[in-house]
């Protein structure tokens, strides 16, 4: 609080002082201090760049080590359809089953989160009745703050038993469907708040013009505001999908540990993150081929999310409708 008082000096209580009485500070000392602080802050900034560099170098070096090991190859990794590094006589390192699991979970999550998040955002931004807003906003904030392991537990102990209650619907104990739904619930707050920001950024006079032409609220929001905010909405979807791809705890708890390509989301599946977590928690020897395979999978995951974040950023910047 000592700092805060400098904002409002009590002028009346302190008698005026002569300039000569003020403590003398050498200009050179101030300059040295100034550049020292600036270098220190720049060091902090460089640290964040170093993190990215460290991730890229580490994943590249270790993934190269993996691809040099016997029984592995880059093409076999990228296009192989079998992934069984931990069990069985011959180990297969084809990443496609893990990618298919990841895509399934992300697709299910997005089909839950995109409509729910977008419609909630439209409601909050365009209709926004005060009473409901006072309930909805904190709800979304609480949902955003709940740790992912809690959603994993919820998927395992609530969503899966509920799905099993549906007559004629055969679901494994571990299945992609319930994990995907849980990841979708997790992504709703992200998508909703980003989409709401995009909708709010549309200038008021566009809405007023549409209203004055006789449009209802539905016409205004669906035919004017959404097209104007489309770039922001798409980038919100992309960011939500990136989160879903990188989500780990829900899928390790609820989706199971069997890597396979399947068209049925009701069966056990493994994602890229799920495999990394499985190796990490088990007692895999620190220098075996299966240990190094997590670096290759992590490199693929990192590239995928990096591309999506970058793409979202580009869409937001390039295709933004510039008003004013």
């Amino acid at each position: 609080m000592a700092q805060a008082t400098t904002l409002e000096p009590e002028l009346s209580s302190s008698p005026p002082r002569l300039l000569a009485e003020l403590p003398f500070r050498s200009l050179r000392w101030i300059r040295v201090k100034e550049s020292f602080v600036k270098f220190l802050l720049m060091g902090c900034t460089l640290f964040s760049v170093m993190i990215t560099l460290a991730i890229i170098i580490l994943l590249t070096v270790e993934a190269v080590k993996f691809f040099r090991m016997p029984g592995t190859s880059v093409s076999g990794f990228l296009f192989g359809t079998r992934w069984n590094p931990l069990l069985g006589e011959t180990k297969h390192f084809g990443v496609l089953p893990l990618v298919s699991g990841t895509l399934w979970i992300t697709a299910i999550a997005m089909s839950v989160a995109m409509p729910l998040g977008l419609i909630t955002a439209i409601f909050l931004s365009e209709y926004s009745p005060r009473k409901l807003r006072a309930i909805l906003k904190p709800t979304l904030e609480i949902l955003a703050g709940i740790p992912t392991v809690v959603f994993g537990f919820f998927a395992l102990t609530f969503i899966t038993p509920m799905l099993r209650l549906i007559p004629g619907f055969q679901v494994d104990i571990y299945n992609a469907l319930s994990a995907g739904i849980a990841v979708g619930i997790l992504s709703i707050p992200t998508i909703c708040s980003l989409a709401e920001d995009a909708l709010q950024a549309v200038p008021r006079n566009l809405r007023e013009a549409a209203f004055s032409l006789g449009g209802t609220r539905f016409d205004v929001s669906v035919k004017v505001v959404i097209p104007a905010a489309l770039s922001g909405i798409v980038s919100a979807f992309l960011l939500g999908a990136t989160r879903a791809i990188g989500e780990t705890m829900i899928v390790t708890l609820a989706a199971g540990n069997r890597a396979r390509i399947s068209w049925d989301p009701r069966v056990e599946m493994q994602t890229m993150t799920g495999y990394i977590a499985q190796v990490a928690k088990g007692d895999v020897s620190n220098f075996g081929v299966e240990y190094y395979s997590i670096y290759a999978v992590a490199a693929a995951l990192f590239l995928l999310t990096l591309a999506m974040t970058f793409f979202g950023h580009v869409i937001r910047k390039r295709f933004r409708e510039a008003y004013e």
Partner: protein
Amino acid sequence: MIELRSIKPDFSRWPVGSVRRRIVVNEVFKSACIAIASLSVIVLLVLLGSILVEGAPALSWKFITGAPSPDPKNCGIGPVIMGSIWVCLGCAAIAVPLGVGTAIFMEEFPPRSTIARRFHEFVQLNITNLAGVPSIVYGILGLTAFANMFGLFGKPDEPAFELGAQHFRQYVTEGTEVVLIPIASPTDVPILVDSMTVETFDGKPIKLIVVAPGNELPQDASMLKKTLWSDAEGGLITKKPWYYLRLPFGRSILAASLTLMLVVLPVIIISTQEALRSVPKTLREGSLGLGSTPWQMVWNVTLPAAIPGIMTGTILSVSRAIGEAAPVLMLAGIVYITKSPRHLADDFAVLPIQIYYWAGQPIAQGDGINFQNLAAAGIIVLLAILLAFNALAIIIRQRTQRPLS
């Protein structure tokens, strides 16, 4: 620009009779909106409700203070809570200065040259990208860089460098008492001499009686407690004070704090940047106009004005570190911990990992508390801690909020 032609009224396509239809569509859409928006409230209530119902039977004071155990009926979570607090404090201590420093540099020291501007843009893009990197990738980085230190210092279990470790040879006397003889390095074996001074396990000095093989032991029980055969073999015991450190960090609190620091750093930077941006420009200009240097302006004007926002954002980011499980799972695996951590290099467990372990246990048939109840009770404790953090952030925001412009 949006194409104005598309909203030009076309009366042939919008007959007057359709006004009623459009009003109906609007009403239907509004009802659908309310229904869908309430769905998230319902989901939250169901989630919290189902966890409360499952966790309530296992929740007790004994559960909060006790230690984990293989028997679900006597299981506690005390050392795990302590582990979470240690890791979170360590993470905050590193991430907050770094994050706030970066944000100040990005916001308060605008680039003057073209190269500096390029650098700024690159760093900003880099921070955005870092915020989108899956946390498990940070876990892999932490495992390799902090826990194993790229293998530069040998295996994580056999540290190449130790600070503050006191090694002892531990002997059991003929009266089944434990005595300790200090040694310099873990491989030393001390020579046992009669009437040498050694320590008991509590650190009290006693005089040792050493008997050569073939001689007779003393009869007195109190003498027997201090008696050793001269060829007795002792085990290695290491006492670690609170400042104990080692390289590589291994599966320690310090390694976990550093790893979680990587996860929350981009979030702290972004929230601090937003807090700094919300400080009105006039305040800065006033300060500069009075002749202050850029750093004097930041330290005396901008930071005090932005502190509430910075603290709110920081507390919320750090509370994310408490709930983050994947990087810690990568780093430490699932560890069975019965004691609270005592130093930064100690083994530890955190709440989300313990919950994950319990949730993954097979559901036992029969009555009584099972691991699922324990997991739910652990979640209640975790959510209570997060709620406390959020409440703190809200209180700070409300106490210190005042109009600046």
